[in-house]
């Protein structure tokens, strides 16, 4: 990839690309011609298709209908039950049933009148403005919201492919992988080593690997007290590092060992069948249970829709979360480049609302509202010991997202135990609230 490609929009190279540029150019002409009465299909206030029923997509669908009940909103999501990554670490620790992280689409269907189709979105035609579905049907849209989450980069870490993930689960998309890792932990002998390989930035849920290590250490401490947790990390700095390390000392003694990049912690090869990993400088580590959190990219449909860039993630217009590359496609959640907002469920929910508000305003011919986002990530070091990072985000004058100074920061390092306990309670309160807000789940 030459330096030019990063700076300037691609020149069309394929028929598909040509169509895209042509289509978008036509759109410009239309917009320039008449200051923005968008074409809307007859008989409704507009058709919006939302792909992906996670934090970003389900929230977008709900808030689209709240913003304008006359919109035709269709949500495309393969699974009737959605399992969240947040709180899946509690399941791994035996502290929460899978039903406690399961959500469905009944509120969206029955209360908000969203049409929900359980199938996969296979392809997007941004010129005809259609989405091809796995069930053979095609949906037309005026506006499309993609909330595709992440895909694993199977080619990025030597030896780690889909077959390997059956031996050494990633459990970074919740569901069967979560169950598999839990079964392995239950079957693990006392005195064994649980190894977690953590990737370089950017990846879904920056504090996630460290919360997972914490809660698994909590489980091992209770049930397999001679066992250890080893984190091999491709970074030297990680989210809430000081708080995690303090929490580990206070709660888990020396059970958790963390090896960063400068300590030869970067895993470069995985032998999943043997549950072995090899680091950058040739150290071989053997695990009783091996959890590889691999490098990631935007979910497949984002690539199919042509909204990703060379990084594998989706650049968006921060004010609306509309793709920078393809008109009328909005992308929210982990798939986007929204830094300094993290790839978190909270952020995806907040982005879903911003995209929904922008779409409602545009289809209504109103001016765009000023966007606001917030994020709070709680992490549990034990079920009773919580820490947090929070920020409120706005747009600066250059149109870029920034964290409002003073709003961004982590829990105090010297906070009393009562605060840690309170934050653990609030973590549960947060999960209940965001589950209710996103899917209508009553926990």
């Amino acid at each position, binding site marked *: 990839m030459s330096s030019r490609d990063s700076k300037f929009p691609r020149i069309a190279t394929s028929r598909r690309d040509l169509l895209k540029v042509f289509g978008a150019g036509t759109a410009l002409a239309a917009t320039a011609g008449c200051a923005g009465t968008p074409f809307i299909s007859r008989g409704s206030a507009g058709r919006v298709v939302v792909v992906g029923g996670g934090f970003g997509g389900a929230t977008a669908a*709900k808030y689209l209908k709240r913003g304008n009940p006359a919109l035709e909103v269709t949500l495309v999501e393969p699974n009737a039950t959605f399992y969240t990554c947040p709180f899946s670490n509690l399941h791994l620790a035996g502290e929460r049933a899978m039903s406690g992280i399961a959500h469905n689409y009944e509120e969206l269907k029955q209360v908000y009148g969203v049409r929900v189709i359980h199938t996969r979105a296979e392809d997007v035609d941004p010129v005809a403005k259609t989405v091809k579905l796995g069930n053979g049907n095609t949906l037309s849209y005026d506006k499309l919201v993609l909330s595709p989450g992440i895909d694993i980069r199977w080619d990025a870490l030597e030896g780690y492919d889909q077959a390997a993930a059956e031996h050494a689960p990633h459990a970074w998309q919740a569901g069967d992988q979560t169950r598999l890792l839990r079964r392995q932990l239950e079957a693990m002998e006392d005195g064994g080593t649980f190894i977690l390989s953590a990737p370089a930035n950017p990846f879904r849920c920056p504090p996630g690997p460290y919360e997972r290590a914490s809660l698994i250490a909590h489980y091992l401490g209770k049930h397999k007290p001679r066992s250890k947790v080893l984190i091999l990390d491709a970074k030297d700095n990680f989210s809430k590092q000081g708080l995690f390390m303090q929490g580990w000392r206070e709660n888990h003694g020396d059970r958790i060992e963390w090896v960063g990049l400068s300590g030869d912690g970067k895993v470069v090869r995985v032998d999943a069948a043997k549950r072995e990993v090899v680091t950058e400088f040739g150290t071989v580590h053997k695990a009783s249970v091996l959890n590889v959190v691999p490098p990631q990219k935007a979910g497949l449909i984002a690539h199919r829709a042509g909204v990703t860039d060379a990084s594998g993630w989706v650049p968006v217009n921060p004010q609306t979360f509309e793709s920078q590359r393809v008109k009328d496609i909005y992308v929210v959640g982990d798939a986007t480049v929204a830094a300094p907002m993290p790839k978190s469920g909270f952020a995806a929910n907040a982005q879903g*609302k911003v995209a929904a508000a922008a779409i*409602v305003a545009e289809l209504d011919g109103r001016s765009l*509202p000023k966007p606001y986002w*917030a994020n709070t990530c709680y992490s549990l070091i034990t079920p009773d010991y919580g820490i947090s990072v929070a*920020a409120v*985000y706005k747009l600066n004058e250059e149109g870029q997202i920034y964290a409002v100074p003073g709003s961004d920061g982590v829990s105090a390092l010297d906070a009393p135990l*009562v605060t840690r306990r309170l934050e653990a309670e609030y973590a549960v*309160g947060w999960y209940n*609230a965001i589950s209710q807000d996103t899917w209508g789940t009553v926990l």
Partner: protein
Amino acid sequence: MLKSLTLTTITSLILLAGPAHANDTARDPQVALMAAACANCHGTDGKLAGSIPAIAGRPAVALESQLLAFKQGEIPNTTVMDRIARGYTDDELKALAHYFANIPRN
């Protein structure tokens, strides 16, 4: 002359009419979008009560003064609300307080 006077009077009336103004705030998509982020912890429309309290339907004055106290760091043992409150101007906090005050609890 008469026309402009009438206009001024109407404008003043709108500005003076506190509750009416607040109701407008509650329907304003701009304030709704700002307030939407609160739902992540307080439930949709701020109605969910649990370890984190519901905020819908509480008096605007009480909500506003509490938000300002969070912002000023005047509430002991705060976890995240001091940080969150510092993300908004005093005017924005006032608008949020009015927005949630005007949402019925049920």
